């Protein structure tokens, strides 16, 4: 269950920026923090790393968001999986016992 914090830079378009803040605030996994000029602090508390990634992508694509920087991440679920397409050829070649 990763916890990450972000600095979200909002666009100069105030209406879009306000709309983005509203959308961000409506997501239960996102807690908004200080908002100074166009920069907004946010913490994302996700169920798993996949949800965390999806949230990050959603924020990046949100109208009114110009840029997203990452400040902190805590990995509570160390990776157990591997991209299935990766290195099939190496595994097939194998390592002699």
């Amino acid at each position, binding site marked *: 269950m990763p*916890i990450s914090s972000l600095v979200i830079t909002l666009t100069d378009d105030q209406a879009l920026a306000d709309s983005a803040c509203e959308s961000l605030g409506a997501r239960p996994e996102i807690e908004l*923090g200080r908002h100074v000029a166009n920069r907004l602090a946010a913490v994302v508390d996700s169920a798993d790393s996949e949800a965390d990634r999806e949230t990050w992508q959603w924020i990046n694509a949100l109208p009114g968001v110009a840029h997203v920087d990452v400040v902190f991440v*805590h990995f509570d679920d160390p*990776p157990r999986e*591997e991209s299935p397409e990766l290195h099939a050829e*190496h595994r097939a070649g*194998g390592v002699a016992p």
Partner: protein
Amino acid sequence: MTRVEADRRTFMKSAAMAAASAAVVRDRTFALQVLDDAPAEQSGVRWAKAPCRFCGTGCHVQVGVENGRVVAIAGDQAADVNKGLLCVKGYHVGLALYGEDRLTRPLLRSGDRFVPITWDQAIDVIADRVGMAPERFAIYGSGQWTIPEGYAAQKLMKGGLGNNHIDPNARLCMASAVTGFIATYGVDEPAGCYQDLDECDVLIMWGNNPAEMHPVLFSRVIDRRSQGEEVLLIDISTRRTRTTEHCQEYLEMKPHGDVAIALGICQQLIERGEYDESFVGRHCSFRAPQAENPTLLGEPITFDEFKSRIAKYTPEHVSELAGIPADSVRRLASLFADRSLRITSLWCMGMNQHTMGTAINTLVHGVHLLSGHFGRPGDAPTSLTGQPSACGTVREVGTLAHALPGGRVVANAEHRRQCEEIWGLPEGRINPKPGFHTVSMWEQFCTPASAGGEIDTIWVQVTNPGQTLPNLPKLFDAKKGLEEKFLIVSEVYPTATTQLADLILPSAMWVEKNGVFGNSERRTQQWFKMVDPPGDARDDCWQTIAVAHRLMERGHEGMRDANGRFLFRVEDDAGQEVPIWEWDHYYDVNVDRALFEEYRAFTRLKHKNLAPYDEYVRSRGMRWPVVEQPEGVWRETRFRFAGFDDPFVPEGEDFDFYHSTTGDGRAQIWFHEYTPPPEVPDDDYPFWLSTGRVLEHWHTGTMTRRIPQLSRAMPSAYVEMHRADAEALDIHDGETIAIESRRGRLELPVWIGGRGMPPMGTIFVPFFDESKLVNLVTLDAHDPFSKQPDFKKCAARVVKMGG
């Protein structure tokens, strides 16, 4: 979830919010060490500093370790480079250690399989191969080597074996930047620093996509604009990228058009009489390549000759060559003519991976010098690097086939003598003949000895040439079936390179070992080992030293200095030699500190002075030259050659290019004639093919593709093409097509209207995917000075499958 777990989670969330809030208000006093002060039930995490493992920006992270494992990463608020911020790759850097297929045992090829062997056996195998023919042995390294790792490999080869066949993958990414700096200033690396991004009025990106490749640096500029500052961003490129979206002006040029544009700006500045006559008159000379056997020294030309040669590059002629409107050339010249503006030029692979790489690098420096946009904060020509220590290890330690540490070169007798003296070697140990550069090294390796191939064994450390070399069929795959050839690969994961390896050595990575990097702005950064490497993986530096000692045990005199002592002798506080070639004793002393302190003596030879190792332990890096002040404080330098900041500029002088190739304190403004690319589209191969990187993956993806979040976000390579081109060929979005060049063929899906948008007649393929090797089709033509190949342009065709 237990109450303790819930408390801990609540605590982590509050720490995360505190970190973000501090970054929002730019509170530089906040530091995550506060977590260390938390009650044990809330945080068992211990924090330490390190530079990020990935690109050349050199962001500082704080690494949280719990139970011997990296569990958290935070941007370092105390770091000037990134001010607490990270990109999506830095966010995941801790997970790069934990892919399930980490290499954990030395493996020796036996037919089509690999057999585990002991380290002792592995070291013997390498010593056997070196001993058979030391002059036919080569090391291929990297800008991801730490400074001590590269220094040790350099010393083993040039100081021990008298063999200069050592070259890095950085030859593929920034060699043209090196030759550009040397030809212009007589010394390598940028004069400015990242502060230029905070103070420029105009930022021109020459074939550069920092929004994806150096996002934290780019966000510094975006942030200024979000606060209402006026910053004009201009993107000069062959395709639209995420960077373009943020730019007010986009100039889409033809491949090689950058050369014509730079020449055109100079032509306009002179024709209109708007160049900085005072700056040029006091600080610059003019130069052009010799007609025969051109070198980086070139030959002098007068201002009038320069003016005469450049006269034909009118805006209209440049428009023909570069494909941008003539008025855009005039507009760029007008910006440079305005001394009230501060202009920073930024570039990376677009200008370096170029058969005119040295030329375009010198020309952009020339635009800045001619216009006087140099040496004030915000006025700078600045190249970025793609690897974390391309500057520190490759350019400063000099792990190149022609170089020695400290800006020395093997061909210079006095330089060899200086190095032999510092290394305590007998006179004449260092070979005066430059070794094979990257492309020729691999060509020699892939050529049978019976056909003249002069390299039999290559030891690859910290890089993946099986994916990154151009024209892979010729320069890598041709090794198959050559019985006398032997490939040694030190790696952390299986890669395209290990597939052809004969011996694989499992390596420690990043915070599994001590390290020192040098980033793009001359900043040297140190970190300590925080966790153990998996299984029997060991430090690359130890591997090098263990081989050196084995060779000495076998009687190789090159492994001893002039006093008969081991080349890598390290003593404890009592003056006793520590057997660092034995893994169990490697961390009895800090080998990094010992090697770094020895290396420091070289850095003073070319005014790249470094502070003692312990100063870097205390800091978030320092930019060289770092000079001790009378009160004992070590002071870094932000702006070289500028009297207000550089300690080596004589008092009272505003500028001094103190390594001038002409010995008179002047920088060189070069003229280079535009020449077309070596391969251009024709009827058979009608498309331009360009290659590059993506935001989610770092270089060949060996680390980032093992991070599930990043791999899912960008699972495989693709080809970007223009919608009209696709429609003409009846190709649909997502369809698998083939790309063919005169060198090879590659199948991959099409992405239309994706992240990057090439113009009609151009396609783009990223190189991170080892299952879709775009370098099967790229060209190995290279710059005549830097020997850097051009991955950004060759001719290709698109073939509809099943049609």
